[in-house]
């Protein structure tokens, strides 16, 4: 596994390049897209384990952090969906450049799935397969969920700060939500996915996730679309981090199977 920084000099992104296990190479690289905020912290282990698993299966893998998140350049206050979409495209270019491969597929979880779908419409070479796990397709519901989780986290862990800082405000579970990002999130709907571009799209739904009929209908013209519902129930929006990494085996299997499926 090789850590690297890539992208425009003024906005370097952190990435981890993982070649396939020896003798297992395929003609296919995979870009993994993080969710936002606390969900990215909690799902880091998932993406690490998924990357290892995909590399053992012969894929070249690139994990990365969007601008202003994780180890990448930029401040959290600069959070911007448009910039993150560009970052996905940039990561794809880096994966192809570093591997020398011409075909890539993208996996995203939660807001990362949404970003992958949005970015696929802008990529010079669209991904072969888009795998979207519990994509955020209703921005208002997503923000409401984050706000409720934030209030609950403060009630449990920081009762005094609830009074001092107020339960509202544009932040959720430890991360600011700048006004521009909030507006961008509010605009997200199933229709946002209509412009996605890939030979096939696989939607993976956790047990508690709402139905994806509207989403799949919006992507009706985007190549073959399928859904896999897994048994695991995931509490995405929670402040818990210690000991709460998300690595459900059924999700890993469903993701790997979707990426290996011939287009």
């Amino acid at each position, binding site marked *: *596994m*090789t*850590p*690297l*920084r890539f992208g425009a000099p003024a906005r*370097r992104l*952190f990435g*981890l390049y993982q070649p396939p296990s020896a003798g297992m190479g395929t003609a296919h690289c995979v870009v993994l897209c993080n969710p936002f905020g*606390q969900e990215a*912290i909690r799902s*880091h*282990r998932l993406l*690490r384990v998924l990357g290892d698993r995909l590399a053992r299966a012969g894929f070249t893998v690139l994990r990365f952090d969007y601008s202003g*998140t*994780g*180890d990448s*350049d930029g401040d*959290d206050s600069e959070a911007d969906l448009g910039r993150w979409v560009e970052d996905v495209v940039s990561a794809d270019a880096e994966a192809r450049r570093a591997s020398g491969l011409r075909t890539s597929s993208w996996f995203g979880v939660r807001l990362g799935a949404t970003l992958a779908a949005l970015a696929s419409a802008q990529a010079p070479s669209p991904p072969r397969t888009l795998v979207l796990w519990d994509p955020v397709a209703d921005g208002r519901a997503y923000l409401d969920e984050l706000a409720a989780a*934030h209030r609950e*986290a*403060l009630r449990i*862990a*920081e009762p*005094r*700060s609830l009074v*001092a*800082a107020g339960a509202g405000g544009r*932040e959720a*579970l*430890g*991360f*600011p939500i700048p006004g521009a990002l909030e507006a961008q999130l509010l605009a997200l709907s199933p229709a946002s996915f209509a412009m996605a571009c890939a030979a096939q799209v696989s939607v993976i739904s956790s047990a508690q996730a709402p139905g994806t009929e509207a989403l799949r209908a919006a992507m009706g013209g985007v190549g073959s679309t399928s859904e896999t519902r897994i048994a695991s129930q995931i509490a995405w929006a929670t*402040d818990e*981090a*210690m*000991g*709460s*990494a998300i690595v459900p085996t059924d999700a890993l299997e469903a993701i790997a199977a979707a990426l290996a499926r011939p287009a």
Partner: protein
Amino acid sequence: MIERSIAFGPGNGLVGTICLPEAGAARPAVGQVLFNAGVVHRVGPHRINVRLARALARRGIPSIRFDLSGQGDSARPRGDLPFEGQAVEDLRASMDALTAASGAQRHAIFGFCSGGCHGYATAQADERVAGLVLYDTYIYPTPRSRLNRALTPIREKGVVTFTLGVLRRLLAARWLLGRDPKGAFDRQGNVGYFRLPTKAEFARTVRALHDRGTRVALMYSCGFPAYNYAGQFRDAFRGTGIDGIVSCDYFQDMGHSATVTAAQARFIERLVEFAAGLEPPKGRAPQ
């Protein structure tokens, strides 16, 4: 500020990011080592380590934030060392890497929660550790903290719950005796797998570190009921001689993982202040 992400250590199995002040900054007195908080990868809870690293760089202090073996993006440990021993080796490797990148010869370690246990062990094993922050790591109760804790239910839930709680505690002789707690994130707020040093042990160790030139800072959130007022550490260690040689901060409105961004900012400011106050090695001023 310049950031470089690297693989380092034995077999290049450790993954981290070096954060350096702008070129031309004075040679730093110390570097800062940041690493995992529990299972959270090197960016820290709510990305605190990244914000801290950049705030430190603005004050001329270089840092490394990295994942211990088997955590975050780092490779699995070799398996020939116990958990604590491996963490000490990893922290030493991170100091080597930071020295190579920045020129800083001595370092401060920020131990977040159980990470403090790793920092505490490393400070004892390696004289390059010039500063040690133990955040929500070791908690020593006092009569007042026990009373505060016992009264919490009456403040929060009323007399009935409080009375039931007292009755329950009356049945727990261990609580009445007030023995030093041991065990994992127990009701006294101890850090699990790790043994809580006895007061005498802790005082002896902190004194030895101080005499060697290592400064120790204790910081506590309001996240553990067992630590519940600003002067608790000083009360617990009054008369031991160390209450005057360590700094102790109590963030009474900040939860354990610092969820509110305003609290994060105050926390980071205090951590920077501590690192910036560390002295250069004796007889050598920073250039």
